[in-house]
């Protein structure tokens, strides 16, 4: 479960953010809605441990994230959190399959070919494993990015504007895929977006 308490972050005295508390039970999904500049990405980065909060508390499955040392935090993030970004990014020099294998390696997990096949298949891109990710179509790239996020069966999937550049059909597809993947591994899903189309697809929403 994910719990945040009185999170506060400031880039400078002008741009500071106080975030509402979040408490998610296992299997819960959350949609965080807000316009640009309200600190959506900041909140996501705080939860992922990419930013240190000025004050407040973040706890994932009993681990207080911001208290971990840099190296341990990297390892914890690799094993427990999967991130999906607005625009998909990959390691250019590697094929999609190799990208997935690298992500397994970075999290300290053994190379698991079965898992890679399984993930590629469940996302409908099993034929694209040997391609360089940047040669895929946009929709395929977004799915490949989801594959990277879920390959290590994380406990928390964080998605930052995963649908903003997609048309309606693909938008629904991607959110469905994210929900499916989260359900499959028993992960909690947090999507942060300004995309109002997603509103109806989630029970829990939080407006910033």
């Amino acid at each position: 479960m994910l719990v945040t308490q009185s999170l506060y972050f400031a880039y400078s005295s002008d741009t500071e953010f106080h975030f509402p508390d979040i408490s998610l039970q296992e299997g819960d999904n959350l949609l965080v809605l807000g316009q640009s500049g309200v600190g959506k990405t900041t909140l996501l980065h705080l939860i992922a441990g990419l930013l240190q909060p000025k004050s407040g508390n973040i706890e994932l499955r009993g681990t207080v994230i911001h208290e971990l040392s840099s190296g341990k935090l990297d390892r914890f993030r690799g094993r427990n959190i999967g991130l999906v970004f607005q625009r998909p990014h990959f390691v250019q020099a590697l094929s999609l399959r190799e990208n997935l294998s690298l992500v397994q390696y970075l999290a300290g997990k053994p190379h698991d070919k079965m898992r890679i096949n399984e993930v590629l298949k469940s996302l409908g891109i099993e034929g694209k494993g040997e391609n360089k990710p940047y040669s895929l179509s946009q929709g395929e790239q977004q799915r490949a990015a989801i594959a990277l996020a879920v390959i290590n069966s994380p406990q928390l999937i964080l998605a930052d504007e995963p649908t903003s550049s997609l048309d309606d059909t693909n938008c629904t597809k991607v959110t469905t895929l994210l929900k499916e993947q989260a359900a499959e591994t028993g992960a909690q899903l947090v999507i942060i977006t300004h995309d109002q189309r997603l509103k109806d697809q989630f029970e829990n929403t939080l407006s910033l």
Partner: protein
Amino acid sequence: MNIFQLSYRNMISRPLSTTLSLVLLILGVGMIALLLQMNRHVQEQMTNNIRGIDMVVGAKGSPLQLILSAVFHIDVPTGNISLHDAEQLRQNGLVDFGIPLSYGDSYEGYRILGTSHQYTELYSAEVASGRLWEEHFEVTLGAVAAVSLNLKVGDTFAGAHGLVAGGEIHEDQSYHVVGILNHTNSVVDQLILTATESVWEVHHHEEEEEAAAEETEGESGELHSEAHQEEHHDANDEEREITAMLINFRSPIGMVQIPRMVNEDTNMQAAVPVYEISRLFSLMGVGIDTLNTIALVIMAVSGFSVFISLFSALKDRRYEMALMRTYGANRWQLVWLVLQEGLLLTLLGFLFGIVFSRLGLWLVSGLMESSYHYEFSGWTLLAEEAWLLISALAIGFLASILPAIYIFRINISKTLANA
């Protein structure tokens, strides 16, 4: 997929800049290694060939020429000296032994040297097959000469006048091969050894013929022929000539006294191999230093090229690095990723450079052997080349340290947000 594999994949994903860096490294490392090897081979050959020779006496002229001709057998002799004078010097109490050398002929570019058996002892050459020369016109071949000339014990051949191939051939006077020496890695390998008397006899005979020919030519040849005939009639030991004599002293005092004495009191010239060789090296040194500097500059440029290549790639891959951090890579793994790429590049450059230098050495060796009958052997790694490896890796390390620091300090959140 691990960090090392990723370093490698990153390297080959930029073939053009990687090739540029590699080519520069190969040039730099290859040139330095080639110079080191050639320097070692030349020095080794030279010191190997002058051991036991404290002084060389020959006709007046350039001392370096005397050494090059009488010790290394690569230059033309300065002239002849009287055997009588040389023998007198040999009787000097400070002289341990003196070995006479007489030139005159060659066979297909290999020099026929008239000398005493002591010459083979000087280079500790052993007879591999057959025996040493005894009678006139018997020859014993050096190991390399035997192979190149394709001669074996029992064969005969006719020498050509002069020291380069293509001289007039003494068809009526043929040499008889009686033995072949073992491989000594010294000048003996490249020589055809015979008795001093053989050389005298060939040219004696030749003079007679020449004299006869000139007589028929009429007035112009008259004077010459007379002179020749005179020489001829009085030919005795006192008038005998040799080309040079190799001298070994009993004590270091000889080294101090004799060369000066010879140069001041006789019409012969004394040259000390050790001095002349160090003079030669200091002359060559300027050229070698220049080439070395050029090679070092190329290596520095290659380091710069590795740096540019890594750094510009990193600018493009900033997001990739941040991405890897979010997937669990720690700072040190990414630093190692970049360092490894730089080191891998320079290591490859070093290895190819060494191969390149050996290829160059092989070519130079072939060239040297055909024109000077010198061969390079022993393809060992030098201690200096270990230093070259360390410098190459240091260049790789220095070139990747800035990109690595950049990676270490990358702000993941900011990089991701700005993407």
